[in-house]
C-alpha cells in the first residue's frame, strides 16, 4: 500500500515536471513519409531535454499551411513556428513584426549564431539585405539534372554539362528515336535558377532584397534566347513539355520516354526506387556562351519562421529547437531520410565522413551545386505576391509550347502583368 502511494506521488511529481515544460507548436506542410520524419525529429527533441515540448501539426499543403498561419495570426492564435515555402518568403519577411529573425532568437537565448556555418547557397536566401537570417532553412533542395545512364551509353554520349552540349546530345538521341529531356516547374528551373546559375539578376532593387521589387527580369535577351531555344527544341522533339504539372513531367523520365529530367535534388530517393535503369545525377546545365563560369543555384523548398510576440519562455523553446534542428546529427538524419540537402557545413562534413555519399552519390550533387562559387546575383530573390506571378508564367508557357503565342509575346505579357502585381505588393509594405 505504502509502495503504491509512493509510486502515485512519484508519478504526480513526474507529470508535474512535464506539465511545467513549455509547450510550443509547429505548423508544417510535410505529408506522408516526410511528415513521419518531422514527427521523429520532434520526438527526439522532446526526449533530448525536459524543459520544452514541441508539438508538430500537419496543416496540409504549403499554401494551406501559410493560409492557416495567416488566419491564425490575424486572430492572435498563431503557432510558434510556421513553415513557409520559398515562394511565400517575401510574404512573411516583408510583413514587419510577423517573424522574429532566427539570428535574434538564437542569440538572445544564448546559442550564438554564425551564418558562415551554413552552406553558401542556403545562407542568404531567407535573409534580409544585410545578410541577417530571418527564416531557418529547413527542407532545402535545388534543381539538378537526372539522366538515364543506359540510354546515354547506348547512344554513346555523356551527360551534358551545358545547354550547348545538350543540343548536340539531343540530335544524336533523336537519331536513335529518343526524346532528350523534360523538366518539372518552369518558373523555378528555367527562370529563377537559370538566373542564379548564370549570375544574372532576377528582379530590380537587388533582387527585391533592398526594397520591394517592381520588375522581374523576364523580358530580357537571355530569357528570349533561352525560351526560343526551348521552343525550337520542343518543335524538333528534343524537349518535351508536358504541362505545368510536376508529375506529368517526371513520369516520362521514369518510363524512359525521355533520357533526362531536370527536377529537384530531393527527388533522387524516390526515383532510384522506382526506375529500372542506371540513374545518374549531375549539375543543372548552363549556357557556356552566357557565362562560362556558371555558379551556384538557389535553394527551393521551405523555411521555418518563428512568429514574434510570443512569451519569452516560448521563444527560448523555439531557439532550443532550432539549435537542435541544425545540429549535424539531426541534419544528417533529415538529409538521409528525405533527400533534402543538409543546410550546415558541419552536417555536410559529418555525412561525408559517414560514407553515405559512396553508396548514394546522387545525394551529394545538390549540396555540391549549392556550394559552387557564387556572384552578386546568387543570394536569392524576394518577390511579393510571387505565386501569382508564377501562375502567370505557367499560363504563358503553356501557351508558348502549344504554339498559341510567340516567346516574345509571352515574355512581354509576363513582364507587364507582373509589374502590376509587384507594384501592388510594394504598396502593402510599410
Amino acid at each position, binding site marked *: 500500500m505504502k509502495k503504491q502511494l509512493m509510486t502515485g506521488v512519484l508519478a504526480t511529481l513526474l507529470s508535474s515536471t512535464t506539465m511545467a515544460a513549455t509547450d510550443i507548436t509547429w505548423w508544417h506542410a510535410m505529408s506522408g513519409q516526410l511528415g513521419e520524419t518531422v514527427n521523429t525529429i520532434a520526438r527526439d527533441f522532446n526526449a533530448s531535454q525536459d524543459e520544452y515540448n514541441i508539438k508538430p501539426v500537419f496543416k496540409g499543403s504549403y499554401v494551406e499551411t501559410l493560409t492557416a498561419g495567416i488566419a491564425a*495570426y490575424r486572430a492572435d492564435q498563431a503557432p510558434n513556428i510556421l513553415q513557409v515555402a520559398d515562394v511565400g518568403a517575401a510574404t512573411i519577411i516583408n510583413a514587419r513584426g510577423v517573424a522574429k529573425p532566427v539570428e535574434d532568437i538564437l542569440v538572445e537565448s544564448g546559442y550564438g549564431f554564425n551564418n558562415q556555418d551554413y552552406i553558401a547557397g542556403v545562407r542568404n536566401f531567407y535573409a534580409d539585405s544585410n545578410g541577417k537570417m530571418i527564416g531557418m532553412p529547413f527542407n532545402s533542395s535545388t534543381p539538378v539534372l537526372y539522366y538515364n545512364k543506359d540510354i546515354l551509353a547506348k547512344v554513346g554520349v555523356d551527360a551534358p554539362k551545358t545547354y550547348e552540349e545538350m543540343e548536340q546530345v539531343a540530335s544524336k538521341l533523336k537519331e536513335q528515336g529518343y526524346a532528350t529531356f523534360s523538366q518539372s516547374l518552369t518558373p523555378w528551373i528555367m527562370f529563377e535558377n537559370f538566373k542564379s546559375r548564370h549570375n544574372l539578376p532576377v528582379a530590380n532593387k537587388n533582387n527585391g532584397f533592398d526594397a520591394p521589387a517592381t520588375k522581374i527580369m523576364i523580358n530580357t535577351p537571355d530569357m528570349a534566347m533561352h525560351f526560343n531555344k526551348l521552343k525550337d527544341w520542343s518543335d524538333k522533339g528534343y524537349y518535351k513539355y508536358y504541362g505545368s504539372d510536376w508529375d506529368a513531367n517526371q513520369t516520362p523520365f521514369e518510363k524512359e520516354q525521355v533520357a533526362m529530367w531536370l527536377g529537384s535534388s530531393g527527388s533522387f530517393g524516390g526515383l532510384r526506387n522506382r526506375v529500372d535503369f542506371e540513374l545518374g545525377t549531375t549539375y543543372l546545365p548552363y549556357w557556356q556562351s552566357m557565362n562560362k563560369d556558371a555558379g551556384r543555384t538557389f535553394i527551393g523548398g521551405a523555411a521555418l519562421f518563428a512568429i514574434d510576440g510570443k512569451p519569452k519562455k516560448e521563444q527560448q523553446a523555439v531557439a532550443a529547437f532550432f539549435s537542435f534542428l541544425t545540429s549535424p546529427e539531426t541534419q544528417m538524419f533529415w538529409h538521409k531520410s528525405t533527400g533534402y540537402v543538409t543546410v550546415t557545413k558541419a552536417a555536410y562534413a559529418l555525412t561525408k565522413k559517414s560514407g553515405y555519399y559512396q553508396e548514394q552519390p546522387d545525394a551529394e550533387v545538390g549540396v555540391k551545386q549549392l556550394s559552387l562559387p557564387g556572384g552578386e546575383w546568387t543570394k536569392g530573390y524576394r518577390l511579393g505576391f510571387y*505565386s501569382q506571378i508564377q501562375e502567370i508564367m505557367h*499560363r504563358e508557357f503553356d501557351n508558348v509550347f502549344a504554339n498559341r503565342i510567340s516567346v516574345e509575346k509571352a515574355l512581354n505579357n509576363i513582364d507587364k502583368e507582373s509589374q502590376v502585381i509587384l507594384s*501592388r505588393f510594394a*504598396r502593402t509594405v*510599410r
Partner: protein
Amino acid sequence: MEQRQQYTHSALPYFLLVPQIAIIAIFFFYPAAEAVYLSFMLEDPWGQSSLFVGLENYTILFNSTEYLKSVVFTLGFALVVSFLSLSIALLLAVKANNILHGKGAYKITLTWVYAVAPAVAGIMGGFMFNPHIGVFTEIFASLGWDFSLYTDPFDATFVLVLVSVWKQVSVNFIYFLAGLQSISYAVNEAAMLDCESDRRRFWTITFPLLAPTGFFLLVINLTYAFFETFGVIDTLTSGGPGGGTTSLVYKIYRDGFIGTDLGGSAAQSVVLLVLVLALTWVQFKFVEKRVHY
C-alpha cells in the same frame, strides 16, 4: 382603437425566426459585407497594413483579358454542363420510368454516383485521363485523337464537362424520376387514348407537367456548375492549361488564397455575387413565368 390592434402581435413569431435570421446574418450577410469592404482595400495578407484604393481592384479586373476569358469560360461551361446533365438525366428518367422489370436495379445504379464528392470525381477523372497512365488517354490515342489533359485547353475542358456532368446526372435523375411518378396515371391514360405518338405525348403532356421540377433543377444545376465544380477543377486541371479552365470561383480562390491578394479576390467575389443575383433574377422573372405549378 382599431389601429392599435395591429400592434398587439405577440413577439413569438419573431423570436422563433431569430435562429434562422442569425444564421443567415452571421454566415451570409456579414461575410458578404466584409467582402464588399475588402474589395475597396489593398491589404497585406497579415493585416498589418490596409490601404483604401477606391475602385482600383475593380478597374484592374475589368481591364484584364484573363478575367474576361474566365467569365466567358464560366458561362459557357455552366450552360453546357447544365444542359447536358439535365437532358441526359431526363432521358434516363423517362426510360427508367417505363421499365416494368428490374426498375430498382436501374434506379440504384443510376443514383449511387450521387454519393461521390466533386473532388473525388475529379481525382478519378485525373487517373483515367492522365497523359501517361490514363486508360482513356490510351483509348483516344488508338482512335487517333492525340488527347492531352495538361497541354490542350479543349481537351481539359472536355474532361471537366464529362466529369461534372457524370457527377450531376444522378441528382437530376432522382428528381426527374420523382417528378414523373407524381404525374397522375389518369392523365397519362387519357393522353394515350388521344395520341399514339410517344414523342408527341411526351412534349405536350409529360414535359409541361415536369416543368416545375425542371425549373428547380435548372437553378440547382447552374449553381452547381458555377460553384461546386470547384473541386473537379482543382483536382483535374488547376485552372490550366494556359489558364483555359479557370472558372470565376476558382480564380477567386487562386488570387485570394494562393496569391494572397485579398482585395482583388474580394472584388471578384462581389462581381460574382452580382452576376449570380442577376442570373437568378432572370430565371425567376422570365423562365418561371412559363412554368405552371
